[in-house]
Every structure is written in structure tokens, then in C-alpha cells.
């Protein structure tokens, strides 16, 4: 795990070294790709926030006793899971203006990715809540704890630990999915490398660097989430 991270860091450092060295072609295209990386990080950041918020809201609402809330959540989840992300992005950017709603590229990208992944995350939240043993609910009834307090203080703290592996994978999937934002005219890592490829024809180098950058992001997330899981297990459940 950390070995993999160290190897990636070393490789990146080597590439950066190469890029400042005058004799390398990397010097020509790496700055452009790194500029794209800034866009990727920006889109990822806002999408992640929207992703977590909508996953929790719809995942909890999916189990609500209120029929209206439950069904709106089901419809949201099914629609955004059922269609393809790329189609959603196109629809937000090219069709919504027809309805009088014009979104800037970054807003369209963040909305599309965040809502799409929120629908997948909802299933994880829902599954984790259902996985909390029935006895915990019964204990709450016996202790006269209200449904709201039960959810916030008893169920969710236990469910969060169950959710972490699923959210780790979805977070990595989300980072990878930001590669599609060129569909809404954003110049992220992927699109920047396509542009650089058209200018310089250094295909192998350019796309290797691009793949490596994404790989590096994914390893950082994996590492961070593993620490989070470790921490929450120790501090929430005190499992030795």
C-alpha cells in the first residue's frame, strides 16, 4: 500500500526532474497537462461535496416512511444511475439552455458528476443503514430514543464504518469520471493531453504521464481512506 504510494511519488519526482531538464520533450507539454490537472482537481473537489451530500440525503430518504420523500429519492436514484454520465453531461450543457437554464461549463460538469455519483452512493448509504443490526433499533425503542436521535446518534455512526470501502471505490471512480468533462468544453488533464498530442505527436510520453497522474490521485485517495477507516474503527468501535 504505502510501497505503491512511495513508488508513485518517486516516479513523479523523476518526471518532474526530467521536465525541468532542458533536453527533455516533457518540458514542452507537461506545464499544459499540469494546468489541466488544476481543472481536474477543482471539478473533483466540488463534485465530491455534491456527491456525498446527495448520497446521504437520498440514501436516508430512500428509507423514509413518507411516501413522497421515498419515491422522489427512488426516482432520482434510478434516473441518474440508469443513464450514462456522458449523456447527462451533454444534456445539462446543451439541452438545459433550451429550458432557459444555462449552466457554466464547470457547474454543468460538477452537477452532472455529483448527481450521477450521488445516486450510486445512495445505495451504499442505504445498504449500510440496513446493515445496522435490528437489535440496535429495538434497544432505541426500549430506551425511548426518538427516531431522529436514533438515526443521528445510533445508526449513522455505525453505518459510516460500513460505508467507507464503498465510498473509497466511488471516490476513485469519481476522479476517473472527471476525465469526461471535456464534453462540456473544460480543459482538464485528459483534454489537455489530447491537445498536446495533436501539437507534438509525442503520444506514448503524453498519455503515459496522464495515466500516471490519475494513478497517483487514486493511490492518494486509497491511502487516505484506509487511514480514515483505520481511525474510525479504532475510535468508533475500539476494535483491537
Amino acid at each position, binding site marked *: 500500500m504505502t510501497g505503491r504510494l512511495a513508488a508513485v511519488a518517486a516516479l513523479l519526482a523523476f518526471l518532474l526532474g526530467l521536465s525541468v531538464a532542458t533536453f527533455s520533450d516533457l518540458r514542452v507539454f507537461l506545464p499544459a497537462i499540469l494546468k489541466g490537472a488544476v481543472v481536474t482537481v477543482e471539478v473533483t473537489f466540488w463534485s465530491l461535496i455534491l456527491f456525498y451530500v446527495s448520497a446521504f440525503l437520498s440514501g436516508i430518504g430512500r428509507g423514509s416512511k413518507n411516501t413522497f420523500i421515498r419515491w422522489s429519492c427512488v426516482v432520482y436514484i434510478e434516473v441518474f444511475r440508469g443513464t450514462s454520465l456522458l449523456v447527462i453531461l*451533454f444534456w445539462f450543457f446543451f439541452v438545459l439552455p433550451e429550458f432557459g437554464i444555462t449552466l457554466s461549463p464547470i457547474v454543468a460538469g460538477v452537477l452532472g458528476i455529483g448527481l450521477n455519483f450521488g445516486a450510486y452512493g445512495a445505495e451504499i448509504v442505504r445498504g449500510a443503514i440496513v446493515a445496522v443490526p435490528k437489535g440496535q433499533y429495538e434497544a432505541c425503542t426500549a430506551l425511548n430514543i426518538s427516531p431522529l436521535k436514533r438515526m443521528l446518534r445510533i445508526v449513522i455512526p455505525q453505518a459510516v464504518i460500513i460505508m467507507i470501502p464503498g465510498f473509497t471505490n466511488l471516490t476513485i471512480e469519481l476522479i476517473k469520471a472527471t476525465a469526461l468533462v471535456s464534453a462540456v468544453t473544460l480543459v482538464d488533464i485528459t483534454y489537455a493531453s489530447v491537445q498536446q498530442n495533436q501539437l507534438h505527436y509525442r503520444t506514448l510520453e503524453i498519455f503515459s504521464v496522464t495515466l500516471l497522474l490519475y494513478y497517483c490521485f487514486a493511490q492518494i485517495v486509497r491511502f487516505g481512506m484506509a487511514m480514515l477507516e483505520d481511525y474510525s474503527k479504532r475510535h468508533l468501535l475500539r476494535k483491537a
Partner: protein
Amino acid sequence: MDWKWDFTFDVVLPRMWEAAGVTVYATFAAFLIAIVLGLVLMLLKSYGPKFVQYPVTEFIEFIRATPLLVQIFFLFFVLPDINITLPPVTTGILALGIYNSVLCAEVYRAGIQAVPRGQWEAATALNLSTYRTFRDIIIPQSLPPIVPALGNYLIAIFKETPLLSFVAVAEIMQISKLIGSEYYRFTEAVTIAGIFFLVMSLVAAAMVRVVENYVKRSILH
């Protein structure tokens, strides 16, 4: 908003119909590559010699950690550099298949791991050969989790085929983009593309559930 029905029927639907064929073809071809290559990867990773296990594990992690779109570009631009010229749709299917094969490998592994240890021990106690153990004991019991998971990847591949539009494969998304830029109207084509994916994946998901129940009933009773 103005939605033009005659435009929808005369221009959009006929061209989308043709493109749907490409989408479905790409989906099944990529799925086939994914389930076969996935099995090979799983066997190499779990049962291969040590010096193979390590690179296979890292290969799987690398494919999982990088975007499908970049992998598609990589194959699309790099293969010609080494003098392999394939039609875009074949390159796309190859990329989709490889990308999903590592996920299928994981499905196989998890399915086999889900068989309780006691079953292996019972097979050992009954002195069954490795082949018999796998064929009669392990594989039948691991199918119930594996089959629906593979079905879900078929749906996932289907929803990933629009990415092939980036390399100009004439599937649904590419055609709706083309219609959009030819007529300066995106509304009908993109909306219909969305509905197409939604309906097809809801139907497919329902079918996966039916198969899932069937497998469960016919194997575990």
C-alpha cells in the same frame, strides 16, 4: 422549450436506430472480452506462480486506478505508433473489454472467496481432487453471487459505450452529437439518447434480478 416531433421522427430516430446497433454490438463484444480475460487474470492472480501474481496484481490496480477514457485514447493513439491499425470501434471494444476484465476478475475472486471455508475442508476430508472440488463444490456455490454481478457489469459496459464517441465511433452518443452539430439542435437527440440508456438499463437491471433469483433457486434451493 420547443420540441420538434417531425424532426424527431424524420431525422433523429432513424439515425439513432442504426447507432443503437453499434452500441449493442460494442457492449456485447466488450463484455465477452471482459468475462474471458477476467477469468484468465483471476486465475493468474490467485493461482499463478509468484512471479506472475505480482505484475498481474499491479496491472489490475493500474487499470482500475486510471480513467477508461484515457485508456481509450492511449490505445487509439499508441497502437498505430507500433503499426497496429484497427478500426476505431475495435480499438474501443478492446479498451472497454480490458477495463472491465479487471473488474470481472475481482467478481470471480469474491465469488470463490464467499464459499465457506468448511466446504473446502469437507472436500478435503472426502479426499476430492482439486478439479472435482472446484467443479462440483466450489463453482456451483460461487455462481449465485457471480452471475448477477457480471450482469451488472454488462449494464455498466453498456453505459460506458458513449465514451467511444470521443474516438468517433458511430454509436448513439456520437450520432446525437453529429445531429446536434449538423442541425444546431441538441434537444431531441440528446434527450432520446438519455431515455434510450435509461429504459435499456432499467429493463436490463430487471432481467438481471430475474436471472439472479433463478440461479439462486436452481443451485441453492
